[in-house]
């Protein structure tokens, strides 16, 4: 099979046994890769009502179909399991180099079952698999973990996906680091590794991923190399990275500030992209991508050290740990980001759980006695780093935050509902649905809880010249739609682009390389899929894959007990924006939102009232084996 190994590795940690599944082309053509392969095995293997931190949970690492080839901007792999943060589908993507390396090591995915009786790491080298002792590094941060594995194996060319103390202590929003600076950040999948006594998966491969039409791939890769500096978004991402969003979100009055109670932050300029330049030592990127959107920062002073090997803060981090907590000290945010990365804590959830505690403190719902003496005023620079440490090690007051905002809020009381910002238990990312109304549907409908990458973002479709609108014509989206609209046209846009995004995840494509936001046209991915696999495929077939995986994700959540009423939005987003240029505007109408959610169900072939996929839709998508 071209582009694929045809083999998936299963590791049962309880039995310390490995097994290799040989998969047919029809399997790959149906589920493709990434979350498609992940969901197939989760639906097969994860029992209903499974405790996510029990040996019954199943963890799948799956690169995309194009990952590991020379196809441009396709470096990603997905990690899937039942999430300990949400109890729903856990799904998180990362770029970097780990996914391509796994493909070169001979496997299209790794499935991890059971629980080891002592700490271990998995070593995969050119098709050979070992389960090795990790007891000496169980409590180690990611940097020391990687160094130890290099030393223990005598191999420095390994790609290591691992967890720090956040993961080993089962913090419910712990992520997974690979290459120390790439993260499957969201949904607490690092805690699932921790619960299995699995410290790391280290991979190395020397095989070439064979493709059907090398010249075609080379031609498209060259086109991307020649054009990424001419496209507004890929150029901006290369030059300034995602931090460029801090200043513009602030200017437009939608920068989450003081746990979202305000939308403009007076310290925005001091934490934005321009200020970050002072600490920038390098632009970094991922396998097969010339854009290099990642910032690498360093501080080397006697009073403050930040190591460059842990990367640098993204927009989400600068907002979540910065304006959202009232912090205007960029060096502090850079250090906080580095600590989260060493400990493998998701920076969005970490910032949001701290800002929520600050909001409770400011209302007198928490006191210094509750917090172990920490004065949790917004903007207090003294508390951020100690709290991150406490969360990662489940110590002191941080222990209460380590289970996420929803569980912590339940201990504080009912008064917090107006400023509790999570969906299905996952803290909202840094995009305001009152300004980008489609985000309300993304937060409510993403199977993994509040997520900003379930579909495409509203501002890219507001005029005929908009980048997004001109790019998605092949999907049949032809008319501009206002960013604050939440009517049927917006629902259709969210539906189609949610299929598109699932398709990208299955292919291993990064949003920053592909339309609707960025450079590479949709049809190029059809050509790339053909060139990699030799399949006579089409945009229709690939979009159907996206739709199939979206419905499989829905089915997984239904089986885990989720209902239509879980597809909701935090109360705050039904209220008007406070302060800034949009003061008094923007509250989402609750009934319109509910109608839009139900319309999405209906358009997706799910029951309008319950949100459960109909048997007809499951059959149409070729999911007969998953029919009830």
């Amino acid at each position, binding site marked *: 099979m071209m582009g694929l190994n045809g083999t998936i590795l299963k590791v049962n940690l309880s039995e310390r046994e490995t097994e290799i599944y040989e998969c047919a082309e029809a399997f790959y053509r149906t589920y493709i890769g990434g979350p498609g392969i992940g969901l197939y095995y989760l639906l097969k293997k994860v029992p209903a009502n499974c405790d996510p931190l029990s040996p019954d949970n199943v963890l799948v690492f799956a690169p995309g179909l194009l990952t590991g080839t020379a196809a441009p901007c396709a470096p990603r792999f997905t990690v899937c399991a039942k999430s300990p943060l949400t109890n729903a589908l856990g799904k998180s993507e990362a770029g970097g180099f780990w996914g391509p390396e796994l493909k070169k090591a001979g496997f299209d995915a790794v499935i991890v079952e059971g629980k080891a009786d002592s700490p271990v790491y998995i070593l995969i080298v050119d098709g050979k698999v070992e389960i090795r002792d990790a007891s000496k590094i169980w409590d180690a941060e990611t940097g020391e973990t990687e160094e130890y594995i290099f030393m223990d194996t005598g191999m420095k060319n390994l790609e290591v996906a691992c967890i720090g103390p956040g993961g080993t202590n089962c913090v419910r929003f712990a992520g997974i680091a690979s290459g120390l600076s790439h993260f499957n950040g969201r949904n607490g999948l690092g805690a699932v590794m921790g619960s299995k006594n699995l410290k790391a998966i280290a991979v190395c491969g020397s095989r070439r991923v064979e493709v059907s039409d090398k010249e075609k791939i080379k031609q498209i890769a060259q086109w991307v190399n020649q054009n990424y500096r001419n496209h507004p978004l890929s150029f901006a991402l290369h030059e*300034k990275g995602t931090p460029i969003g801090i200043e513009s979100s602030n200017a437009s009055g939608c920068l989450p500030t003081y746990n979202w109670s305000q939308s403009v932050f007076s310290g925005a300029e001091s934490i934005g992209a321009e200020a970050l330049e002072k600490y920038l030592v390098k632009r970094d990127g991922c396998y097969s991508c010339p854009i290099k959107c990642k910032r690498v920062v360093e501080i080397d002073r006697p009073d403050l050290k930040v190591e460059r090997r842990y990367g640098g803060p993204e927009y989400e981090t600068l907002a979540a740990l910065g304006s959202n907590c009232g912090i205007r000290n960029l060096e502090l945010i850079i250090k906080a980001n580095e600590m989260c990365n060493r400990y493998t804590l998701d920076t969005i959830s970490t910032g949001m759980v701290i800002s929520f505690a600050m909001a409770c403190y400011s209302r007198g719902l928490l006191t210094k006695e509750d917090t172990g003496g920490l004065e949790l005023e917004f903007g207090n620079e003294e508390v951020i780093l100690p709290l991150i440490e406490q969360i990662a090690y489940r110590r002191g007051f941080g222990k209460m935050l380590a289970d996420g905002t929803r569980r912590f809020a339940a201990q504080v009381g009912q008064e917090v509902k107006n400023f509790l910002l999570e969906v299905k238990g996952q803290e909202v990312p840094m995009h305001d649905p009152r300004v980008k109304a489609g985000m309300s549907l993304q937060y409510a409908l993403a199977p993994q809880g509040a997520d900003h990458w379930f579909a495409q973002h509203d501002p890219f479709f507001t005029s005929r010249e908009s980048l997004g609108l001109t790019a998605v014509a092949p999907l049949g989206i032809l008319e501009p739609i206002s960013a604050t609209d939440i009517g049927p046209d917006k629902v259709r846009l969210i539906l189609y682009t949610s299929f598109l995004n699932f398709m990208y995840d299955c292919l291993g494509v990064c949003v920053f390389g592909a339309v609707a936001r960025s450079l590479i046209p949709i049809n190029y991915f059809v050509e790339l899929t053909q060139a990699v696999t030799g399949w006579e495929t089409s945009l229709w077939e690939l979009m159907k894959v996206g739709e199939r995986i979206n419905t499989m994700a829905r089915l997984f959540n239904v089986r885990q007990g989720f209902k239509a009423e879980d597809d909701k939005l935090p109360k705050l987003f039904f209220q008007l924006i406070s302060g800034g240029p949009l003061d008094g505007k923007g509250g989402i109408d609750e009934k319109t939102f509910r109608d839009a959610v139900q319309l999405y169900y209906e358009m997706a072939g799910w029951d309008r009232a319950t949100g459960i996929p109909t048997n007809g839709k499951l059959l149409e998508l070729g999911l007969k084996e998953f029919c009830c």
Partner: protein
Amino acid sequence: MSTLVKVVVELKSVLKQWRSDLVSGKSEFQFQEGATVGEMLRYLGLCHGEVGLVVVNGEVANEDRELEDGAKVELYPIFSGG
């Protein structure tokens, strides 16, 4: 005879690199009375998706917004958070 309006346009961040001829990033332009934000962007050659946000006198503006004499316009580049 038609009246002209003067506006000061400030280019933020990477937009300065698209128009490197506007050295300081802040320049004064004259347009016909009634000119809109959209027409201004086309005149500046920044109508291909480069601009993600237009702020006129501190308010978020869409492309139909007419420019008044003395307006201060800030243009922010398109961005994508992640």
